[in-house]
């Protein structure tokens, strides 16, 4: 599953980041690292870009780039524990 296909407002954890090196590096420098929780808050008109929340910060990320972020669902029990 990638960040581009996650349902809205569903926290997931980052598994890996691929893509061009400068882009990947920049994402990681903003704290997009394996294990970190991320969620898609919204989608702009015409379906692109995405409104993404991570570490209490929000970014606008285009669909094409969001597909470079592979994510894992958070198991239901862990999700409850987090709340």
């Amino acid at each position, binding site marked *: 599953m990638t960040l581009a296909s996650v349902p809205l407002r569903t926290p997931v954890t980052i598994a890996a980041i691929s893509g*061009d*090196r*400068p*882009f*990947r*590096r*920049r*994402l*990681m*420098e*903003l*704290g997009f*690292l394996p294990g970190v929780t991320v969620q898609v*808050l*919204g989608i*702009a*008109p*015409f*379906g*692109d*870009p995405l*409104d993404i929340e991570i*570490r*209490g*910060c*929000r*970014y*606008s*990320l*285009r669909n*094409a*780039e969001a597909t470079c972020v592979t994510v894992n669902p958070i198991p239901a029990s862990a999700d409850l524990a987090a709340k």
Partner: protein
Amino acid sequence: MQPATAASATAGNRVQMPRIALAGNPNTGKTSLFNRLTGANARVGNYPGVTVEREIGKWNLGSRTVEVMDVPGAYSLAARSAEEQVAIRSVFGLDPGEPRPALVVVVIDATQLVRNLYFAMQLIEARVPVVLALNLIDVARAQGSPPDRQRVEDILGVPVVAVSAATGEGLEPLARAVERVLVRPDEGRSVATWRYPRALEKDVDRLAALVAAWSPEEAKALGRWALLSVDVEDELVDIPEVVRKEVTNVRRQAEAAGRDIDAELIGTRYSWLDAQDFGIRGTADTGFTEAVDRFLLHPLWGGLTFLLTMGVLFQALFSWSDPAISAIEATFAWLATHVHNALPDGVVNDFLVQGVINGAGSVVVFLPQIMLLFFLLGFLEDSGYMARVAFLVDRLMKSLGLHGRAFVPMLSGYACAVPAIMATRTLERQRDRVLTMMVVPLMSCSARLPVYTLIISALFPPNTKFFGFIPAPAFMMVFMYVFSTTMALTAAAVLGRTMLKGPKVPLLLELPPYRVPRLATVVRQMWMRAKTFLTEAGTTILACTVVLWALLAFPRHPLLSHDYNADRAAISASTDPTSDASELAADHRAALDAVDAAETAEKLQKSYGGQLGHLVEPLIRPLGFDWKIGVGLVGAFAAREVFVSTMGVVYGIGADQDEQSVPLRERIRGEKRDDGTPVYTPLVGLSLMIFFALSAQCMSTLAVVRRESRSWKWPAFLFAYMTVLAWCFSFVVYQGGKALGF
């Protein structure tokens, strides 16, 4: 050392005050803090070698005064372009001739501590003396989860001060901390306690051995920087070839061993940060921003608010600036009249009135639009809404090869290209700025409107209809706007995919929390923009006006076709002093005015500008234009609307013509070629409007492009490509129309 050099070095030391750098992430209130610290005395300049603007101001600490340099906001020191490289070059003082900052004040957004500390860590591990300013501490408290200042200081081992640029809180302690570190730099240095993997440390050592640095720690920091930044496709400058080669070797070997250097470096820093307890309790209440975004990013309400905001912005530029523009024009006209009357007739008088005063007026007249635009931009930017605008229109702009932030400059282009081009500095990348600058002048600006109005009203009378039901004048006006928009968008798409093909760096746009903008910051930025426009672009525009004036005013005494003085004498002699005075006096004056206008017209036709009109006639004849239109085009270079008054002079009916004046309209309709056919047909009118829509007939635009791109190359390219485009389209329209029998 030579004695003279020693003496000048001593003198230099006496005047040189220590420089401190203000660095940090974007959206941390860094500019507000800079304004708080330095007051109104900043000077604007450029970072060496790039078009990134920088401000340097003076900060009075109490015991001494220091120079503060505002470093552009960045999420990391790592860079992939010369522009991003500014951050590391300026904090390490790597530019030749630039002093090395004595210390760096890292501005930290207290509400987003970890990501901001990632930046600070890179300075700490280089053993650069730092003071951390935990800005926005008031907001962090209001959100209910402020970091514990003491804990942050204990963990990082460098001075940390809680401040608020908005309220002024903590500025005194900040000054004291800076003073302390200036005296004892070691107080601002810390021993980094994060450990990189052993294999990575070995790689870093290999690079550290190749770089010149002040300390072993700094050499290592530069080594890490190089490992993270240098890439086969980077656009960095001044990277020694040995360093490049070694980075490539190291990365290749690491890859072969299954290691990921980027992840190791960045991961180590973040893992360390994530393991610390900075005393943040509970989660921050970001409910306000989220609630506002539920409305402002809503497909319907958000869209409507967006349209409304852009509507207000456009209306402000297009209409609200009008009274101020009229007032400026009236003031300069008043000044011109008085100077003209006070001085004896002659070349000095004309130079002062038509060259200097007129030229100064044509510079100052841009100020209302520039100031309004930057005032509104400041609010949009500082409130956080600008990022939402970019988010909402990003999809649209992506298809043009641009991104969302280019929208406002493009929209402003409909009012005037000059402020619009200045607004491109809100774009981060040079390539995006240049691309936007190259297409904004194609947007139909308000100065083209008088030209369209004149031509349409002269050649497409109100009662004409296309296909029997579409009113021709309205259709033509709408057509011109649709045409210019289409051309601008096409040009963006084409240039963006060809000569301005950008590197594939996806833009990561932060959507910062909404904040109340500070009026003082917004106004200060607006003044700064106005000042740089006047002093830098303004001087170029003034010089061009004087040149243009000279073109149209010299030679002073051309050989005229006949003796206008004799005509005047004849009119005076024919007047019978005994007849009804008032009626005759009016006739008499009208006759004299006609002679004056005819003389001015002939002088203009024989001026260098007029000769230029003749010279270019073979070039513009295929577009349906005669040499008189050529003279108008030369005059229009001062500003497009000047075409109207220049045509008034060329046709000998005086310069005080506007687009509504009947005599000029009738003259255009009646103007004949030598063979008796009319010069202006609707087809010629269309060709002329297309030419105006596409050509770069505006020296102010070119002057501003030169100022903003810091090179002559881009205004030259802009002028060349727009002129060629205009010529080709007019040619196709005119010749095609003629072949079709119009």
